[in-house]
């Protein structure tokens, strides 16, 4: 099915699940439903999952697209080292987090979605994928004499100094390729 990195989809699914858990939890707490402690838990769990899943991993192949403002989250998640890098840990973590959500109707949907995300992460872990932080690359030293060109050059190189460059007014088109200084191949 193509060289898919399952973790990318697992990440989208987990982020969505975090939001759904959070929303369900808020409804449960605000409506003071029976079993609202589970809803309160879901709010906390939802926020935690969102924070964990917000920074996208660097792709093994291809260009990685960052989420807006994810850099600070990347730094936080990176600091946990192997715990956040390994997808087995994430799969089991999400499976564990989702269980209490199943005890209350408002959070059941978040629970099931997070469970599915956990399964996709498990698939990613089995395939050996890992979470890598997207860090800003150090600017490679470009040629210091690179000049940004806004207008295409009017005369092809080699160009004489400006005072010698005079356009023949009567034939502007031809003047473009006319060099006042003769050029030879030698």
């Amino acid at each position, binding site marked *: 099915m*193509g060289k*898919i990195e399952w973790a990318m989809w697992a990440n*989208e699914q987990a982020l969505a699940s975090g939001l759904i858990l959070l929303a*369900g939890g808020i409804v449960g707490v605000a409506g003071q439903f029976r079993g609202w402690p589970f809803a309160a838990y879901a709010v906390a769990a939802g926020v935690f999952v969102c924070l964990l899943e917000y920074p996208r991993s660097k792709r093994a192949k291809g260009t990685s697209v960052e989420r807006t403002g994810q850099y600070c989250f990347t730094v936080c998640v990176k600091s946990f080292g192997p715990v956040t890098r390994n997808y087995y840990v994430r799969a089991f973590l999400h499976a564990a987090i989702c269980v209490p959500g199943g*005890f209350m109707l408002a959070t059941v949907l978040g629970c099931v979605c997070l469970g599915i995300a956990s399964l996709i992460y498990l698939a990613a872990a089995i395939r050996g994928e890992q979470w890598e932080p997207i860090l800003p690359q150090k600017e490679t030293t470009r040629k210091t004499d690179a000049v940004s060109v806004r207008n*295409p050059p009017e005369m092809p190189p*080699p160009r004489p100094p400006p005072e010698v460059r005079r356009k023949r007014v009567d034939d502007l088109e031809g003047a473009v390729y006319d060099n006042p200084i003769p050029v030879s*191949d030698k």
Partner: protein
Amino acid sequence: MGNFAANEGLSIFVILVWLGINAFLFVHFYMAFLVERWFYTRVLLGHALSWARAPAACLNFNCLLILLPVCRNLLSFLRGTIQCCSRTAARQLDRNLTFHKLVAYMIAFHTAVHIGAHLFNFEFFMDAQLDRNSSLLPFILSEIGTGDNASFLNPIRTNETNPTIVMFTTIAGLTGVVITLALILIITSSMEVIRRSYFEVFWYTHHLFVIFFIGLVFHGYGRIVRGQTAASLKTNRPEVCADQFEDWGNNGTDCAVPEFAGNPPMTWKWVVGPMILYVCERLVRLYRSHQKVVITKVVMHPSKTLELQMKRKGFHMEVGQYVFIQCPSVSRLEWHPFTLTSAPEEDYFSAHIRIVGDWTQALYEACGGDKTEPQEAWKLPKLAIDGPFGTASEDVFRYEVVMLVGAGIGVTPFASILKSVWYKRIQNNQDVFTKKIYFYWLCPETQAFEWFADLLQSLEGQMAEKGVTDFLSYNIYLTRWKETEAAHFRVHHEAENDPITGLKQKTLYGKPNWDNEFTNIASKHPGTKVGVFLCGPPQLGKSLEKQSLSHTEGDVKFIFNKENF
């Protein structure tokens, strides 16, 4: 400022009408549940009932709409029919995918509101069963229908349960969970990162929409939303009898025990039409895919471009159209879109395919691209073609002056147009409405020129022969080059033919100054509608769109058309 209305007016109008219908349905159905018939239901649920039913109506409407923009063949047919009446309306149909996504977001939004309201409904229904006090109206109402299980109001029939169990044991609850899960999986796999990188995951997961629609149709079959029957309203009028609930059914009162029934399911009436249309669409695609396609020639071009020339009985195309190609020996389920690079006047149709991923690489090998000796005709793989489908490029000949901008491989639809121009104007000497074409090709590398350079060379030669050199003005921009190449250009700058393309028209270096170009064209063609056509990256599209809008002043109108896949 430019003429925004000419470019965007119809889109905005369509969106406003759609939003307006959504708002109307929401308010109408919200109010519909505030009538007497639902009085006792509201005793249990309050306004949460209306908050659940209003988005349900909007969901019916949006689920009707969502299938329509993806019926490619239907849209292509409509486009052809409308084209004769209105070019603007036809262009609207190009934005089908955008509309599909908007409707999807609206479905997600209404689903969220609907589920939120139902969470409250379940909780209130449960409350009514748990507070088992005969002096409470909600409890009395919940007890109705316990004997015959037909005229009940509260779908939760006992207090020895909880909302989660009820959800999984009712048709509405179960189908609701299943279709919401399907919707969430569809949405997460349709995110742009996933779609652009792993189209297969997106495409296969998207087929969960079948489960979505089946579940949606059956969602209302349990008739779980119950209101007072018309007969019962005669024997128990809520405004009079609600306070006397302890005496219902007793001798001497005029308040009988109320009876309730559920509404018949309505969703199928909304979605059955589009579902049938979509099934027809898939059948059409299936039929077309079984028609025999013969590869007549395979050409390997530099810069990893494969050209396939094919024939199929009864195939008829217009300029700039695209087809979906399937190669069963490579993959049975994958269909990929490619622009046709041949002109309608030719006796074959061709596509130039860039080798970028698994499927294109496998196709290249199946066509014998990696072998050095030519392949026998019978060894070439079997192909299936769906299409051709129309895109904006069909409109090119409807403008008097046209600007064609192609970036890299994005030049392909214009290859078809230029070839067609050559056939019409130069070979047949037909009179075409289009009087002037400005063609811009932006390319990051020199090898990419080769296959297209041949076409331009022959065009150049033919035009010189017939003396119609001012019809087509083309500008090729090399946007990146290496130092060694630059040295070569410098040395050969005075040669008659361009050192890269071999054309008389010299290659230009860097990116075009669009402001200048637009201003020049505006000044040369006052009082005309200039069509601007782009096939390229979105950033270029944005800047061209901006330029089109800002240079549309006075009597010159720049109308921007973008290809999209």
